[in-house]
């Protein structure tokens, strides 16, 4: 399958076609980070991307997230080829379609949780009223409504990551991209985050998570293995239900996912 018309297949959210990414380091030195990846992801899937360090997981994520353009190959997002869009057009696609969660949270310091969450709406041009409402709603969804005025340095790592997830969700994206979101969190908090992702998947948001931990990948509906810039394995699985172990006294402070399982 090559370029041109993308046959509209129901539920296909995105499709990579022979995508490569080559970084030039100057002096003719080139790094082939991706060597031809083809991948189709359906709406509502929860994909875990695994692989050794340097296998190209983060590179794949930045292409999926429209943070960068492939060296060759095509990327169809909701049927539209986005692999050759300008920087400004990509910014719009990111704002409307993507939510990002990073290993190091990347919240703006000295800025309240609420203002951090409002940020994508600001760039989408939403009114102050809509921004306030949606930000509070998103914070409520991750169980942090009562921390809306806290600054990042007044929140635990797990809470910061949940603020980051609220920020990723506030624009009602189609895809949530998370590169090692639990890398800086303990296992209990990691399970909380996974429970949250599973819930998002059920509500129709596609989630792609990069992880090194098989325990984490077990919560996904699909696991993609990478090696040397290629997809070497891709299988669906029955996900493990993320059940947060009973809270100890200290954990209550950390905050259990609001609402829990449906």
């Amino acid at each position: 399958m090559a370029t041109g018309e993308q046959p509209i297949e129901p539920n296909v959210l995105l499709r990579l076609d022979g995508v490569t990414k080559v970084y030039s380091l100057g002096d003719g030195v080139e790094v082939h980070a991706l060597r031809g990846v083809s991948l189709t992801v359906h709406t509502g899937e929860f994909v875990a991307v695994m692989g050794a360090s340097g296998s190209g997981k983060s590179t794949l994520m930045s292409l999926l997230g429209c943070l960068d353009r492939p060296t060759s190959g095509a990327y169809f997002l909701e049927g539209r080829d986005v692999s050759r869009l300008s920087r400004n057009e990509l910014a719009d696609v990111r704002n409307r379609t993507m939510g990002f969660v990073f290993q190091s949270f990347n919240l703006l310091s000295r800025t309240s949780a609420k203002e951090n969450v409002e940020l994508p709406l600001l760039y989408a041009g939403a009114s102050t009223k809509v921004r306030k409402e949606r930000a509070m709603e998103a914070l409520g969804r991750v169980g942090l409504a009562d921390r809306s005025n806290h600054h990042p340095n007044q929140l635990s790592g797990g809470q910061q990551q949940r603020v980051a997830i609220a920020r990723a969700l506030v624009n009602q994206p189609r895809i949530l991209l998370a590169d090692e979101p639990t890398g800086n969190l303990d296992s209990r908090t990691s399970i909380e985050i996974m429970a949250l992702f599973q819930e998002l998947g059920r509500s129709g948001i596609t989630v792609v998570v990069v992880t090194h931990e098989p325990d984490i990948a077990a919560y996904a509906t699909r696991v993609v293995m990478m090696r040397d810039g290629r997809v070497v394995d891709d299988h669906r699985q029955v996900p493990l239900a993320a059940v947060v172990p009973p809270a100890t006294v200290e954990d209550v402070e950390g905050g259990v996912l609001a609402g829990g399982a449906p």
Partner: protein
Amino acid sequence: MNPWVTFKVALRALLRNKTRSGLTMLGIVIGVSAVIAMVAIGEGAKVKVAQAFDAMGTNLLIVMSGSTQGGGMRGGAGTMPTLTWGDLASVRTEVSSVKYAAPVCQTGASIQSDEQNWTTMIVGTSLDYFAIRNWAIDKGALFSQADIDSGSKVLVMGTTVAEKLYGAGVDPTGRTIRVRGSPFQIVGLLTSKGQSPMGQDYDDAVVMPVTTFRAKIQGGLAQYIPGVVFVGATSSKTTSRAQRDIEDLLRDRHHLQPGIESDFSIRNLSELAGASQQGTQVMTSLLAAVAAVSLLVGGIGIMNILLVSVTERTREIGVRMAIGAKPRTILAQFLVEALTLAVMGGVVGIGLGIFVAQRLAASFQWPLLIRGDIIVLAVGFSAAIGIGFGLYPAWKASRLDPIDALRYE
């Protein structure tokens, strides 16, 4: 993103680092206030000089005995008098561009009241003198033409002299003082005129009829004027013509052949005033230039801080781009940050500048002259500096690659 939102985002970013924003603004504050204060000082000095020249007399020409090299305001001390009473009458009546002409004879002398004595300037002149110098009587009355004709022993007194002899606020009119041994009646007190451009106190003088002056104070040859002639031209535009006309008339009256140097000289006070004005103008420009340099330094400060800030906030920029900020949005945000710093600095600088100008004007007793155009210019300039020096850092920020920026440590 609309401009108001951009402004709010920029303002939030500035408020996150208040100390740094404040210090950056300080450069602009100092620059703008310096420009405003310096220009106000220069303008004040200019008006002060103009006022001093006005106090000497409007459209004033001074005709002196002797050539240009000799003599001075004192009436050609050491030179032979060459101006006659006939010359004076001719200048006054025959030159169309001349409105007033008065003999001015003066000498320093000691005068005595009942309790005090004071050494001051004694001036003998005619009534035209007061018209030329715009010098009015505050209390009492001026002596009359009849007093001049008869050589009455009357005089009008400057405020400094009255103060020295009788104390401040005392009306000396009607009292008698002795000048060179003769009793004189004080008929009037002159209004205060302040200082000459050279710092001489105009009010430290008494003025009497020129006839009395010659009879009682200082004689001399009957035919010649023992002093100078003050001439008032009909307007400021005619002073130069009056100067040439008087020159021609007097050369003719003194039977001077062409090529022979004049035996008198004419000083044009408005030319002197012009030269002096130019001096203060140069000073004003210099002060303004120095102040403008400090404004420029303030601008470089903004650029410096923004460059540091772009580097420091690389990750933040990456996050903003990842969640949908376009390169031009980032450019706008940093530009607006620079502009906000510069304009806020400019506004604070105006306040400070006006305050400093007020204090300086008060301490120098200058009129306070805040020029509106300079304020507009200073703020416009600081805004231009904000944009000019903010452009490079903002452009750098907008060129960042979101992936690199997110990975930045």
